[in-house]
């Protein structure tokens, strides 16, 4: 163990002495974080709203005002009839049509249950889902407001029925009612960036020592192979977790992300992901003769892993074969867990399948890497 400590110390000395390495390690992920956190969001603004008001009651008008005042909707058309609503949707001049039924105001005041209809333009499924969900939230909010003001009967219920052809509206934002994506995407993006860097640098670091010839010098010492390899890879786990901490601090300052509760799980899963990726990095290093080759192979995996992680495109909407590939992607597991965790503070029972999956991936990549390492180094 003491020998391992000395190897890690030596490795850290070398990493921090490398002028190209420091900006790569600490600046790049932070800049990426600042840029990506603004694009990896499902937030949609300026949705075009058409209203088909069949009642013209002040309460109906107030609902429309409230939707527009939210800032997410701009009013495209008012007092449309049904045919015109459909035409607006067809011509893509409206993203959402709100249908207010006749006797809307009267029935609410009488304490009855009233349902407004939301017709969404489902060409862009994501946008439609978001539009329906925003509107649904605002409608629910509106009902609460009216009840508190005592303007409607005590038993009155206002509900929004969504209707979008071919759209499955399971997409509900129960745990993030304000739909503030930055809040939960920032830690996820950070974890992804940090672990990808570990893959790249881990692979290159092992090849580097072989390239400069010192691996042979170490090979004639009594140091065991696993100590040597751990000494080359573990510094990147340490650095990764330090980067995660720095990044979270910056995220808190800039994006005011909440940092209570589920942070321990974030660290645990980031560490497991990094370990799995370091295993893959070692595997890559065995198949590469130069740092450049290692870098290109690692880059190949990085692109695939990030794009197929579910960070930008939901895995559920991928074809089956692609979903099968993501089984081997530790990043996909990390993103899934970060979503789950950051949204509602997951319990251990809920994260257990992901935990097991990541450990399996780590063991799998590690075993393959050790097998090829033995083969290569006799």
């Amino acid at each position, binding site marked *: 163990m003491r020998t391992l400590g000395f190897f890690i110390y*030596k490795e850290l000395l070398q990493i921090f*002495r*490398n002028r190209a390495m420091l900006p790569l390690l600490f600046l790049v992920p932070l800049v990426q974080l600042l840029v990506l956190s603004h694009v990896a969001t499902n937030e949609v603004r300026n949705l075009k709203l058409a209203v088909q008001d069949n009642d013209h009651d002040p309460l109906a008008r107030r609902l429309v005002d409230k939707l527009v005042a939210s800032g997410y909707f701009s009013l495209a058309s008012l007092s449309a009839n049904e045919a015109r609503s459909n035409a607006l949707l067809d011509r893509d001049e409206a993203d959402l049509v709100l249908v207010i039924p006749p006797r809307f105001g009267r029935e609410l005041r009488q304490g009855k249950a009233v349902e407004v209809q939301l017709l969404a333009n489902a060409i862009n499924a994501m946008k439609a889902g978001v539009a329906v969900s925003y509107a649904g939230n605002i409608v629910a909010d509106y009902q609460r407001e009216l009840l508190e003001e005592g303007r409607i009967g005590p038993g009155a219920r206002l509900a929004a029925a969504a209707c979008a052809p071919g759209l499955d509206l399971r997409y509900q934002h129960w745990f993030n009612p304000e739909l503030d994506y930055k809040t939960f995407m920032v830690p996820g993006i950070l974890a992804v960036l940090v672990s990808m860097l570990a893959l790249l640098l881990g692979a290159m670091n092992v090849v580097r020592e072989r390239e400069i*010839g010192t691996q*042979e*010098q170490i090979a004639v*010492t*009594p140091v065991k192979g696993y100590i040597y390899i751990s000494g080359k890879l573990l510094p990147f786990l340490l650095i990764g977790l330090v980067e995660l901490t720095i990044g979270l601090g910056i995220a808190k300052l800039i994006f005011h992300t909440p940092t209570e509760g589920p942070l321990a799980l974030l660290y645990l899963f980031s560490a497991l992901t990094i370990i799995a990726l370091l295993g893959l990095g070692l595997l890559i290093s065995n198949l590469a003769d130069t740092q450049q080759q290692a870098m290109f192979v690692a880059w190949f995996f990085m692109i695939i892993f990030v794009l197929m992680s579910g960070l930008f495109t939901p895995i559920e909407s991928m074809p089956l074969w692609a979903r099968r590939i993501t089984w081997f992607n530790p990043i996909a597991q990390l993103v899934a867990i970060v979503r789950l965790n950051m949204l509602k503070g997951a319990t251990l029972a809920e994260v257990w399948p992901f935990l097991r999956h990541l450990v399996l991936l780590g063991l799998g990549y590690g075993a393959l890497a050790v097998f090829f390492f033995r083969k290569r180094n006799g």
Partner: protein
Amino acid sequence: MPIEADNLVKRYGDLTAVDRVSLRVADGEIFGLTGPDGAGKSSLFRMLTTLVRPDEGSGRVAGFDIRTDYLEIRKRIGYMPDVFSLYEDLSVRENLHFFARVFGVRVKENYHLIREVYEPLKPFERRRAGKLSGGMKQKLALACALIHQPEALFLDEPTTGVDAVSRKEFWDILYRIRARGVAILVATPYMDEAARCDRLGLMQDGRLMVQGAPQELIAQYPHHLYAFRAHQAYRYLELLRRHPRVHRAVLAGEAVHVSSLAPLDPEDMRQYLREAGIMDFAFEPAAPDIEDVFIALVDQQQPQTQEA
């Protein structure tokens, strides 16, 4: 015997890099290996230092089998590969302490082992190893190879790329290490260094063609040798080679070494040279050195390539 090799064979595909090599190095003995690039010296080193397994034959280092007890061997040997392989981005001091730790020893306790090598480096302790001169790099590498008190030292062309003064210093240090009873196996392309070894082996195409004390090897020189000296002597190589009784003419420093299978009459040769228009020269019988022995041996092995 700290270093023993018996009929070691190493093949890489169709190439037999080391072909049935046997040698012994005793305590306090410097055994030199010389021969052209690709003769198999490094492959032999790599087997004896447990980096690769031999395909055939056996070997023992510090009393342990190179096939099975490699971990024990690695604790007891020092190795300097043919390229500088310390950490160039670590300082002199950090390299030394790192390798001491790797062997589980402390620099302080073993400093007496490396004093004469390391003392000249002391003023540069904080300098990065990559910024040292060739001679200092090689002293640092030797210090790192000695810090754990090895019983056997393997030096693969340690003085390549090092200036003449540093080479001489290096050999003075080797003699002092030898005096402590360490067995030293050293590969060298320099014939003057080969002559300084206690015993010497000449390698060619994977085979150890001959071994013995340098003086013994020289005594076995099979031909007759003469030295030709003149201003720009190399210009007359072809002329000398054209003489029917000259077996070989090769450059040896400023002079040309001329060998023949039967004794030559120097006066006949001088006449031949004067007739060719050379006036200011000397042609005398000469004592062969290691290089002459080596060239003669290569000729005997491969007479068909002597014109090359």
